[in-house]
């Protein structure tokens, strides 16, 4: 708008009385909008309002669509539509008309059109694309008002993809003669920078021009862009520091036009913007920071007036001073300034004071100490916002000593707060504080008895972190702090596992704590090495942590010293670690590559097949080394050789076995031992306690499916919870004693005392001893002492607790053992009891135990889905005839009569009971047919009514026609299944369920996991009849290869023939040929997979070499050969 027009028109407004005149609000009430607004205010209910607005909207809708509506009327309609939208009613039909108005209207209508667009649409609305042409046209207009309007709407919203279309035009405006246009152009570019930074990269130098603009408004606008760019890349703009400092100096010095003053403070917004920029530039950069000290000082000094705006500047100044490289003098002034905020009676300033304290307290904890009482007051402030901010502050100063009080306060607040977001945030913080603290307790109490999983998963959690990096940092920092203070105390009392965790965390994260010298940490860690009780495993954790930390000359000498002291250690691992430490401390580069910082969460690539050792292995083999044997094979051999007498350990071994699962047996020897023990279980539990194998804390944590994690938390919490009631009275008592010990001449009023006590518990452990403290020393010392006493109290309580839990665990184990080894029918009753019975049963058992742990265990035990180990143990025992005294023998003969006629002539295994319920008994046997192995299941109905039973077994196919069959009263029905195994394996388990209807109820029970071992192979294996030549060809073709020595039977004249005969009879092998001391044997599985065996008598034993195309077959066959020979 040209100045000429401006001047001519200045006189006009007074002549006009149209609705747009300033201050004419009341006049426009005659307009349609006015009628609408008045209409609404007269209404009494929401419902009436809704009706009125809907009427209004439909009328607007009708009018905007009418071709006769003029643009002027359209403007009026848009205003009404905006009003309706503001009230919360949708007027989306008007959006397109708003765009049309902006496009086609004259300037005044355009203005409303643009406004409506900016209010109706958001950045991602598709209609916005229709605005692009209008904006383009208006940017090229000669009418300044139109250009301004276009730039205004562009600065608020513009489709990202269309930026290139208008960018040149906007850029052009940066050199426009009118400052208002330049200013708006800068802001439009700022907007572009925010939504699409890449698009405006090439015009960075034009931004510099804007920064140097003679108009302060344009310059101020350009700072928005700079702040953003410097935030992202402070390094790139260091050269501008001097310019920013100069500008700030001029502003502070009052060099700007008076127009920019706000309540006689020169351009406060500009000042604040510059202070923000400077703090970004000066952060972690001493030389840049030095350039700004003077102007910051000046700003602090000038902002003296008691007005909100000066406080706003002061706050920003303080923040800058604490962000940039510190200067003592400035810090002192800033601290005083924060004091003014905190002590101000104005609540807004107090709030900002707390916020500032929160910001600086990590650098200067003493500042919080100075304002203890104010903080305590704020903690009880009636305004939740203040309270919340105080908690935030306390959160930052939490340490191991005040965590309990602070968490207590946070929880107190949580009870008051109703806001979800705050709750989420605060709960997170409480959890964070508690997490470390609780884990500390868990580690200290659980000690070395706990499962290795717990420390492992704790460390994993810590290293993987959560969603936010800042939270992770806080958590790790807190852990570091807490561990450092633990190590400074009496680390000798800490359990080994906890020490290992501490070492790892310190090694990994102690660099997060500023001001903590690596050498300090190293010395703390080195102390652990010298302690008598530190195990060598822990020592190697410690040394590894030290290798991570070794930095600087201090550390090198320390490493040297350590390597001299421990280099001669008998423990090779330790020696290696010490060597590593020494080398890594000397070579920083190597350390960085071997132990990169913060790399804990990065996955390591592990070559699990150890293929890099292939060369080594083949070399060793060719040099005559014995081939590798899988562990179970080795164990077999040991057992077979009977080289080791198991007698002294006889009792303890089955205990550890049964505490896992009997079915997990690897060795038949062990198994028969455990079953042999089944008779005298009471005796066993008694002796179990006195065996040398330590059973302390042995819980039933490993099941067939791995770690039984569910019950862990229960026990943990039980352990953790107990100490807290123990320690609170002790603290109470301590507090009382101080009270009586310090009879002050001027008695403090009671509430005041409370506050002081709260303060001392909140601020304990902050800052140095000599720091300013309102409590005075006399009170602080007993406080610390008290703390310590409390710690001891709780730990003694804890050890009590541990011994308690040992006791209960012990009894749990015993109970389990009893149950495990109970008479088999009882066991299977327990195992197959219907769901209704199960809890009740376990309840009963639990009651007799008196511990809830046991209940937990039992529920798991009897839960059919989870852990079928009991049953399996049972049937395994059955599958091992010599060790089993079969109570069901008479039943066998009676059931065998039920075998179908076509199977009656074939050989069948003994019939073993699977499971039973009140009325149903399930038994099974297998029958060998020429071409198949059949599993026959007998269902015996002992009730006096018919039961319909549906049997389902996994892995097998049913031969009998219908799987559903009514089992007649007091009769037996028979099912046949054909067994096929896909891969040979030493154990095959079959599982299934039987559902049956009885008394209208559908019930189901678990059909035992039917575990076939050697029998399976015996039944599936068939002789493979080949000639010696064929054998030779096959031998070369097979890849799977196993070598092993077997026992040679010495009862006959020819040991080789005798041995092979036994194998032939027992395992249905085909002896192809025997030549001298060598023999070749062949067999196949039912499905036809062959296995060849080459035997040679060598040094009193039989060296066998097996080959097969199937991976597990040689191992499997070998296993059965061993068993067969052993049983012979």
């Amino acid at each position, binding site marked *: 708008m040209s100045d000429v027009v401006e001047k001519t*028109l200045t006189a006009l407004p007074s002549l006009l009385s149209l609705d747009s005149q300033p201050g004419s609000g009341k006049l426009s009430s005659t307009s349609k909008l006015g009628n609408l607004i008045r209409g609404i205010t007269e209404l009494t209910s929401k419902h009436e309002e809704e009706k009125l607005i809907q009427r209004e909207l439909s009328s607007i809708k009708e009018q905007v669509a009418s071709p006769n509506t003029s643009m002027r009327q359209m403007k009026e309609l848009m205003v009404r539509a905006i009003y309706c939208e503001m009230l919360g009613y949708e007027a989306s039909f008007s959006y397109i008309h708003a765009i049309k108005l902006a496009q086609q209207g004259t300037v005044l209508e355009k203005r409303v059109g643009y406004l409506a667009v900016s209010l109706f649409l958001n950045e991602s609305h598709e209609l916005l694309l229709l605005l692009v042409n209008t904006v383009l046209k208006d940017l090229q207009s000669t009418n300044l008002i139109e250009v301004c309007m276009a730039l205004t709407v562009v600065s608020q919203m513009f489709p990202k993809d269309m930026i290139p279309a208008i960018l040149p035009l906007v850029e052009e405006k940066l050199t426009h003669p009118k400052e208002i246009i330049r200013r708006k152009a800068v802001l439009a570019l700022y907007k572009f920078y925010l939504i699409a930074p890449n698009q405006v990269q090439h015009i960075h130098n034009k931004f510099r021009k804007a920064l140097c603009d003679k108009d302060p408004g344009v310059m101020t606008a350009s700072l928005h862009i700079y702040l953003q760019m410097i935030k992202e890349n402070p390094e790139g703009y260091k050269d501008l520091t001097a310019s920013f400092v100069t500008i700030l100096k001029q502003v502070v010095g009052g060099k700007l036009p008076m127009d920019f003053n706000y309540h006689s403070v020169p351009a406060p917004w500009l000042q604040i913007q510059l202070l923000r920029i400077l703090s970004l530039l000066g952060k972690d950069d001493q030389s840049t920071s030095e350039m700004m000290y003077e102007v910051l000082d000046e700003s602090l000094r000038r902002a003296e007036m008691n007005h909100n705006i000066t406080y706003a500047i002061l706050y920003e100044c303080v923040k800058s001073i604490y962000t940039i490289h510190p200067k003592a003098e400035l810090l002192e002034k800033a601290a005083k300034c924060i004091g003014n905020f905190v002590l101000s009676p104005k609540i*807004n300033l107090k709030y900002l004071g707390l916020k500032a304290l929160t910001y600086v307290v990590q650098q200067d904890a003493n500042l919080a100490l100075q304002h203890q009482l104010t903080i305590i007051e704020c903690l009880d402030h009636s305004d939740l916002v203040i309270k919340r901010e105080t908690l935030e502050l306390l959160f930052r100063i939490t340490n191991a000593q005040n965590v309990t009080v602070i968490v207590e306060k946070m929880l107190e607040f949580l009870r008051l707060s109703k806001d979800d977001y705050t709750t989420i945030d605060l709960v997170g913080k409480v959890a964070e504080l508690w997490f470390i603290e609780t884990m500390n307790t868990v580690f200290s109490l659980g000690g070395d008895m706990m499962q290795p999983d717990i420390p492992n998963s704790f460390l994993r959690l810590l290293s993987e972190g959560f969603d936010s990096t800042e939270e992770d940092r806080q958590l790790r920092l807190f852990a570091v702090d807490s561990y450092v203070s633990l190590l400074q105390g009496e680390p000798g009392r800490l359990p080994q596992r906890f020490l290992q965790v501490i070492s790892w965390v310190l090694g990994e994260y102690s660099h997060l704590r500023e001001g903590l010298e690596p050498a300090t940490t190293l010395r703390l860690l080195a102390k652990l090495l010298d302690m008598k009780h530190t195990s060598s495993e822990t020592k190697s954790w410690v040394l590894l942590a030290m290798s991570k930390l070794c930095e600087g000359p201090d550390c090198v000498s320390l490493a040297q010293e350590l390597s001299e002291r421990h280099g001669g250690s008998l423990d090779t691992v330790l020696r290696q670690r010490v060597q590593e430490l020494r080398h890594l401390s000397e070579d920083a580069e190597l350390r960085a590559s071997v132990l990169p910082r913060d790399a804990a969460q990065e996955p390591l690539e592990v070559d699990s097949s150890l293929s890099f050792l292939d060369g080594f292995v083949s070399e060793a083999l060719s040099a005559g080394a014995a081939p590798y044997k899988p562990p179970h094979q080795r164990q077999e051999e040991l057992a077979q050789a009977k080289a080791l007498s198991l007698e002294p350990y006889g009792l303890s071994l089955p205990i550890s076995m049964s505490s896992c699962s009997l079915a997990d047996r690897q060795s038949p020897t062990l198994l028969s031992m455990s079953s042999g023990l089944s008779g005298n279980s009471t005796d066993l539990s008694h002796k179990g306690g006195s065996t040398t194998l330590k059973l302390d804390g042995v819980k039933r944590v490993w099941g067939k499916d791995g770690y039984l994690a569910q019950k862990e938390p229960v026990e943990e919490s039980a352990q953790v919870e107990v100490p807290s009631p123990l320690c609170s009275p002790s603290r109470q008592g301590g507090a009382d004693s101080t009270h009586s010990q310090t009879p002050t001449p001027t008695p403090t009023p009671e509430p005041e005392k409370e506050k002081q006590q709260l303060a001392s518990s909140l601020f304990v452990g902050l800052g140095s001893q000599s720091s300013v403290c309102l409590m005075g020393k006399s009170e602080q010392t007993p406080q610390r002492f008290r703390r310590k006493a409390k710690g001891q109290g709780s730990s003694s309580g804890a050890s009590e607790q541990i011994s308690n839990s040992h006791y209960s665990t012990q009894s749990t184990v015993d109970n389990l053992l009893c149950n495990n080894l109970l008479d088999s029918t009882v066991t299977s009753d327990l195992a197959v009891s219907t769901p209704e019975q199960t809890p009740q049963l376990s309840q009963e058992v639990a009651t007799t135990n008196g511990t809830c742990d046991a209940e937990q265990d039992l529920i798991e035990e009897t839960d059919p889905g989870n852990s079928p180990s009991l049953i399996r143990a049972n049937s395994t025992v059955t599958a091992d005839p010599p060790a089993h005294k079969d109570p069901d023998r008479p039943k066998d003969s009676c059931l065998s009569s039920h075998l179908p006629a076509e199977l009656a002539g074939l050989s069948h295994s003994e019939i073993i009971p699977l499971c039973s319920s009140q009325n149903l008994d399930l038994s099974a046997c297998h029958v060998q047919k020429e071409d198949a192995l059949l599993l026959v299941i007998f269902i015996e109905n002992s009730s006096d009514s018919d039961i319909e039973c549906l049997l389902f077994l996994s892995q097998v196919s049913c031969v009998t026609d219908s799987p559903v069959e009514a089992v007649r009263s007091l009769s037996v029905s028979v099912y046949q299944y054909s067994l096929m195994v896909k891969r040979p394996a030493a154990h095959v388990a079959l599982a299934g369920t039987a559902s049956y209807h009885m008394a209208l109820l559908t019930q189901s029970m678990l059909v035992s996991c039917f575990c076939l071992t050697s029998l399976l192979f015996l039944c599936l294996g068939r002789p493979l009849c080949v000639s010696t030549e064929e054998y030779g060809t096959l031998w070369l073709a097979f890849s799977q290869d196993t070598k092993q020595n077997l026992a040679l039977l010495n009862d006959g004249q020819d040991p080789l023939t005798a041995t092979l005969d036994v194998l032939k009879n027992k395992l249905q092998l085909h002896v192809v040929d025997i030549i001298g001391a060598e023999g070749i044997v062949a067999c196949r599985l039912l499905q036809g997979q062959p296995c060849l065996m080459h035997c040679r008598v060598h040094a009193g034993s039989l060296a066998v070499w097996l080959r097969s195309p199937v991976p597990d077959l040689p191992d499997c066959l070998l296993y059965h050969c061993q068993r067969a020979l052993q049983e012979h």
Partner: protein
Amino acid sequence: MHSFTFHCVSPSCSDQSPLSFPQMQFMLLFSRQGKLRLQKWYVPLSDKERKKISRDLVQTILARKPKMCSFLEWRDLKIVYKRYASLYFCCAVEDQDNELITLEIIHRYVELLDKYFGSVCELDIIFNFEKAYFILDEFLLGGEAQETSKKNVLKAIEQADLLQEVIHVCIAV
């Protein structure tokens, strides 16, 4: 942990790359009765979200006592509000921002309205809300302070207004 950030609340911006936002995220004017008088959003949000936010905030702020602090934390934003007669002015800024300067932005806006309308009252804003928007747009643009000189803002508004008058005159003639 609890990364429920305000920016991601909006479904309308979920498909975009993470953006930077202006200092001020939105401004609301509402009456003591909880009626919205003005709303300006500087971040892209869906209608639904806008309604939810204004409803929540109006409720929260109206429940606060007069002597209480002018700032409050809401989600991950800082809300700065002030009551002028029967009208509440409320701004949302990021948590790290300077609350006091935001308070002064509100005050400066009220000064501008006062100067323009001549001792402004709630009715002026109700009946001439589009004017109130025009003034706001000259003062804050895209969530940032555009022009802090009172004189310059009013000059810009008056120029635009004057132009309107000229055209009105022309049409009338």
